[in-house]
C-alpha cells in the first residue's frame, strides 16, 4: 500500500488526506510519497496494555517529515524502541499486517491492515 501525504494548491501538506484541506478548505490535488524519506521522532511511547490482536509491547512514535519547507506528521509503530529518543531519525519499512484483523475487529474489511513501521536509522 502507499504511504502518501496530500498537498493542496496552497502548499499545505497533511497525512492522511482529507476531503478539504484542514488549513484553507481547498481540495487536495497532489500526493507525496513518504516511503523513501527520513523523518524525526517528535515523541514516542511503549504501550503495554494493548487491544486484542495488537503486539505487546507496542512501540509507537509520532514522526515529522520535512517537505519543501512544510512539515507533516504521521503516527506509526516503531520496529524497536531500542535507542529511540525525541529527535531520533527513522525511516518507514513496510509491514504486511500491523495488527490481526481477525482478533476483535468487528468489520475487518473496513480497514487496510498493512502499512509502514518506523525503523531507527
Amino acid at each position, binding site marked *: 500500500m502507499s504511504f502518501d501525504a496530500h498537498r493542496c494548491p496552497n502548499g499545505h501538506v497533511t497525512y492522511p488526506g482529507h476531503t478539504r484541506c484542514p488549513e484553507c478548505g481547498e481540495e487536495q490535488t497532489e500526493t507525496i510519497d513518504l516511503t523513501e524519506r527520513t523523518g524525526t521522532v517528535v515523541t514516542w511511547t511503549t*504501550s503495554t496494555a494493548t487491544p486484542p490482536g495488537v503486539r505487546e509491547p507496542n512501540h509507537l512514535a509520532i514522526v515529522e517529515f520535512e517537505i519543501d519547507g512544510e512539515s507533516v506528521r504521521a503516527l506509526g509503530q516503531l520496529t524497536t524502541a531500542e535507542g529511540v529518543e525525541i529527535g531520533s531519525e527513522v525511516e518507514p519499512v513496510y509491514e504486511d499486517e500491523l495488527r490481526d484483523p481477525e482478533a476483535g475487529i468487528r468489520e475487518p474489511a473496513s480497514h487496510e491492515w498493512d502499512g509502514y513501521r518506523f525503523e531507527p536509522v
Partner: protein
Amino acid sequence: MDRVAIIGASMTEFGDRDAWVRALLAEAGDAALRDAGVDGDDLDHLYVSNMASGEFEGQTGVPNALAHDLGALGAYTQRVDQTSASGGAGIYAAWQSVASGASDMTLLVGGEKMTHKTTGEATDVIASLTHPVEYKHGVTLPSFAGLTARKYLDEYDAPRESLGKVAVKNHRNGVDNPHAQFRKEVDLETALDSPIVADPLRLYDFCPITDGSAALLFCPESVAEQYTDDYVVVSGIGGATDTHVVHERDDPTTMRGVVESADIAYEMADRGPEDVDFAELHDMFTILEFLQSEDLGFFEKGEGWKAVEDGVTDRDGDLPINTSGGLKSKGHPLGASGVAQAYELYVQLLGDAGDRQVDGSVGLACNVGGFGNCVTTTILEQP
C-alpha cells in the same frame, strides 16, 4: 433573559455494578427527579448521554427505554454521543433546549456500563473513535497519553513525580466522595512504582473502567423558583472540536478544543479564568489535568505541573481541582462522566458536599472526548 437553572441532580454509585445501562440510567434519572420534586410527566425533553451501549452490551434505543421507565412518555427524547464528552455535549443539548424556549423542563441522564468487558476489549471500543491510519497501528487513548506526557515532560522540564502527584491528590479527594469507585489514598511511591502502561505513564496515571450514571434537571430560572431556592445557573457553556487525527496537531501539548470551548464559555458568563473558584477537569489521564489547567487559562503553558507541586489545586488550595476525586478515583463511565462533573459543581455550590466542601460561587467543568477531539466547558454559578 431568563437564565437556565439546574434544580435537581444525582449520581449513582460508580464502580463495578451488576445493573445494565437501562437500570443505571433509571436509577440516576429517578433520583434527580426526586431531588427536585418533579414528576416524569412534567418533562418536555429527555436527553441521554451515552457513548456505546450498542457496542458494550447490545442495547440500543436507550432514551426511549428511559422515558418509559420514568413515566415521561410524550417527552421529546434524544441520545447524545460525543465519546468521552457525551456528558458535556448532553449538558449543551439540555441547556440549549431550555435557553431556546423549546422546553420548560429537561432531564439529562448520562450513563455507561463497561466493566463486564476485559480491559483490552473496553479500551478497543474507545479506540474505535480514532482515525484508521492511527487505529491500525494499535493505538489506544492511553498510548496517546504516553506520547503526550513524554513530550510535555521534555518540553517543560517537568519531573515525572509531578504526574504522580495528580494521582495522589485526586485519590485523596475521592476518599470523601461516597459515590467514588476508589475511596482509598494512594502514596506517591505506589503511584510512581506501579506497572508501566504507556511509557512514561504508569497504572496510577490512568482512570479505571467503570459502570455508573448521573443526572441533571434543567428549567428556566423563573420556573426553578416555583420549585426550590436551592438551584444553580448555567452562566456559560461552549463546545469545540480539534483534529480527528491526533498526530496532525502542531503542538501536542495544547488542546485547542479546550482553549476554544473555554473562550466561548467565559465570554457567555462574562467571566475569566481568575473568577473560577474550583473546577472539575477531565483527568482520564494525569497528564490531561496539566494540559487543561493551562489551556483553560488557570496557569501559563508549561506551568500546570508546578501548581500541583505547590498544592494550589489541593482541596484547601487557591484553586481546588477535582474535589470529587476526578475521573481518576471517582471512575469514568464514559457517558456519565461529564454529567457527574456538573453534579459535583452543583453539590459544591449548594453547600451539600459534606467533608469535601470547598468555598466558592463559580465552578467550571471541562469534559474532553477522544484525546481532546471534542470538548465542552461549562460554568455553573450560584444564582
